[in-house]
């Protein structure tokens, strides 16, 4: 308890500041943290720990594993596959638009491709891939051995991959959704979209929503309960803060998509009239419901990426994050604001001017916390000593692109301007700057930063620089001209345009840029494949970073930490005082138990050694039975739905049945 009192006493930012000031003055911004397994007892225990935590080395182990690192890796790999698919769709669209009155695609195919491009990138790529980083790194960053609900975590992944396959199977059924990623009624209702494409879309998203919700609950409980002792909320890494606020946004935003999609599907299949203006319904309700989800979703995509930036900036600036508290609070504020701005997607729908003005003001207000974060990053870079490695290049690129996207964001938040450019390529340019520039660039930075931890090998720096240069130049070539094309009046989602309207050159440039961008991504894939075998060995902490994931080996052992660390500051690995303490592993082993430490929500005082469930076949089983339910709904097959419901009940019962005899 004496030591615990010491941890408590070390709360003051005064002390933090003094330490940092000293380091700054002495030009040694970081201290060397003792390597992993420095504790002899723990080292002796680690083969036994490995035995407890490792999945079976066969197919059964592959399908039943609940290791958050394997699940996280699967999310990232699957998300990247969808990124490539959505990218190929985008390239086909760009080839079609490369010259006027092109006939490569007919209008219907064009509609299918832009619908699937948007749906894939938003729902199947960015969100799950960022969840993958969260899955892999949140337990490592907070010094835990797994997520709070490891089996739920596995279920989330299986549902995600099945729902993705579900939506993409629409290509096999030749019934690809055509309604755009926000699927406005009445276009997507039964009358105007009688074919099954929209059913794939609505049911697929309902299916996927289960995964997102399960993930959100898991993240919140993990972050609240499983932080290492001493990691009070005020010492939590900013990436974890951002995953936390994102999870809350998911928790309250996804229901709106669920309600919207379910109501649309009911309208389409059993003939209810929710969106039918001839029978008391209202199509505008769809837009409200969709954007009450859709706008927070923009931040669900963006906030984890902001967390990645706040992770990379201090490490490569060799300086602790400036304005930590402000950055954390800005994330919280942004997420709260994001629930109050959805109508800015509906400025052109004829709502009352007062409502529009309020939402316009709210939308501009959201730039305040965003600007605050940008300033904090720039100041951190300014006072630090930047090291221009590839992860930092992507973050620098992000800062430029996000600034541009943010500026056009404030422009389209202004009503008269929005009325001018709504549904034009200006809007396409704006949201690609904030989503691709704001989210995908940090994701690539995180690839270069964190893949060494995951694979044990560094990515090649030279290829990384080429990768970044091609992506940055290609991105700007592809999307900057869209601002101009939009101002000139080129409407989005139109499969072609006539020659001689000033759009020919711009569109050709955009297509060239898109291919350069794709080439950059191709080089990234080559870099990963090459470095996987021939890359320099990363070691535990190649970047001499500040957070706990670097205090274990690369790749981390199945149990993450042989000893659970104790945390004394925001930068535990730059802090000499952070020594690791340990739980008596040999005893845990004797009991044959997988355990991690649960702690109190606010100040992370240890509460109990929590049992962590073992690998289980039930998550995959439950995901399959839910899949059967949705397939039954899609095919209108009652038999299939009943099979799904019964197996679902059996699966959940098997899952929740206690594994051990009562004490």
């Amino acid at each position, binding site marked *: 308890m004496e030591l615990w009192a010491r941890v408590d006493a070390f709360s003051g930012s005064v002390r933090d500041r003094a330490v940092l000031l000293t380091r700054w003055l002495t030009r040694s911004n970081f201290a060397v943290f003792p390597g992993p397994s420095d504790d002899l007892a723990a080292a002796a225990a680690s083969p036994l720990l490995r035995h407890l935590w490792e999945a079976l080395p066969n197919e059964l182990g592959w399908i039943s594993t609940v290791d958050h690192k394997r699940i996280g890796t699967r999310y990232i790999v699957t998300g990247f596959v969808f990124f490539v698919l959505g990218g190929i769709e985008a390239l086909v669209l760009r080839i079609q638009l490369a010259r006027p009155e092109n006939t490569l695609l007919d209008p219907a195919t064009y509609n299918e491709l832009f619908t699937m491009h948007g749906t894939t990138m938003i729902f199947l790529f960015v969100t799950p891939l960022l969840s993958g980083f969260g899955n892999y790194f949140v337990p490592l960053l907070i010094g835990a051995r797994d997520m709070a609900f490891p089996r739920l975590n596995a279920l989330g992944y299986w549902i995600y991959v099945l729902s993705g396959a579900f939506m993409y199977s629409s290509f096999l059924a030749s019934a690809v959704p055509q309604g755009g990623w926000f699927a406005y009624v009445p276009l997507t209702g039964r009358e105007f979209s009688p074919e099954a494409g929209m059913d794939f879309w609505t049911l697929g998203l309902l299916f996927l929503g289960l995964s997102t919700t399960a993930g959100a609950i898991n993240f919140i409980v993990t972050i609240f309960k499983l932080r290492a002792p001493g990691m009070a909320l005020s010492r939590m890494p900013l990436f974890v803060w951002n995953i936390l606020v994102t999870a809350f946004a998911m928790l*309250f935003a996804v229901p709106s998509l669920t309600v919207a999609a379910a109501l649309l599907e009911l309208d389409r299949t059993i003939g209810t009239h929710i969106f039918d203006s001839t029978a008391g319904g209202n199509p505008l309700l769809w837009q409200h419901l969709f954007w009450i989800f859709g706008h927070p979703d923009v931040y669900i995509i963006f906030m984890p990426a902001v967390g990645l930036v706040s992770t990379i900036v201090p490490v490569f600036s060799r300086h602790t994050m400036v304005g930590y508290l402000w950055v954390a609070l800005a994330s919280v504020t942004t997420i709260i604001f994001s629930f109050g701005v959805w109508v800015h997607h509906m400025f052109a729908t004829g709502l009352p001017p007062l409502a529009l003005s309020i939402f316009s003001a709210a939308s501009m207000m959201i730039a305040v916390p965003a600007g605050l974060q940008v300033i904090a990053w720039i100041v951190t870079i300014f006072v630090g000593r930047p090291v221009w490695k590839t992860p930092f290049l992507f973050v620098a690129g992000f800062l430029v692109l996000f600034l541009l996207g943010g500026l056009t964001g404030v422009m389209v938040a202004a009503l008269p301007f929005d009325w001018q450019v709504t549904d034009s390529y200006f809007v396409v340019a704006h949201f690609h700057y904030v989503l691709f520039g704001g989210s995908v660039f940090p994701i690539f930075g995180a690839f270069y930063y964190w893949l060494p931890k995951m694979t044990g090998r560094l990515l090649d720096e030279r290829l990384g620089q080429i990768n970044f240069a091609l992506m940055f130049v290609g991105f700007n070539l592809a999307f900057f001209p869209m601002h101009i094309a939009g101002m000139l009046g080129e409407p989005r989602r139109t499969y072609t345009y006539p020659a001689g309207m000033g759009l020919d050159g711009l569109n050709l440039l955009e297509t060239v840029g898109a291919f350069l961008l794709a080439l950059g991504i191709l080089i990234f894939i080559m870099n990963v494949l090459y470095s996987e075998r021939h890359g320099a060995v990363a070691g535990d902490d190649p970047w001499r970073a500040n957070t706990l994931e670097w205090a274990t080996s690369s790749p981390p052992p199945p149990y993450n930490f042989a000893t659970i660390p104790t945390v004394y500051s925001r930068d535990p690995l730059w802090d000499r005082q952070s020594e690791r303490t340990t739980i008596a592993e040999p005893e845990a082993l004797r009991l044959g138990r997988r355990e991690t430490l649960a702690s109190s929500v606010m100040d992370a005082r240890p509460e109990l050694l929590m*049992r962590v469930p073992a690998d289980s076949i039930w998550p995959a089983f439950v995901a399959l039975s839910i899949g059967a339910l949705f397939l039954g709904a899609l095919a209108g097959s009652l038999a299939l739905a009943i099979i799904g419901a019964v197996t679902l009940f059996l699966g959940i019962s098997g899952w929740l049945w206690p594994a051990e005899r009562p004490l």
Partner: protein
Amino acid sequence: MRVLVRGGLPAEVPRGGTDTLDAGIAPAWWGMLLLIATEATIFALLLSSYVYLGFASGSGWPPAGMKRPELSLPLIGTLLLLGSSVPMVWAEAGVRAGNVGRLRLGLALALVMGGAFLGIQALEYSHKAFTPQTNAYGSLFYIITGFHGLHVFVALVMNAVLQLRAALGHFGATRSLAISVVGLYWHFVGTVWIFILALVYLGPYLIGRAT
């Protein structure tokens, strides 16, 4: 008692397996709380849609020509559903005191009351003069009450599983977490009904209408 190799953790950190934890500490309890938060949002959005379409309809809500909902059956149902939380609480307190018999009796009582609520809802449906296909009001009436009914059904299934596990001797004074967690869900399903009753059943009587 845990043996600590080197400082850091207080020696008295307890060990917990499934079902043995106190509600406020257990991740499962937190998980249920968050599930309830997201489910409550779904209900809030459905009820908002009901209010939105009502305001937009222009001919009253339910629309002109449709009767206001009959109240006697739903009010009996309300008493049963909200009342069923009492044996749930009683059962939970029972198992905490080590009385598994009280747990099983309380669960059974709650199951019967919840089941009766569903029966009354089915009876009410059979008397209705409209279907989900009649108009948007009809659609939302059935969607909201039906979705709630589905939640009651799920709560009943959970209750039955707990009953089975109680019969197999899974619960006792120090093993009651599952009861607390299901109890939380049970009370949530009742609480949501208060809002549905207020907006869908009582609302049309409180707010003037066109006809």
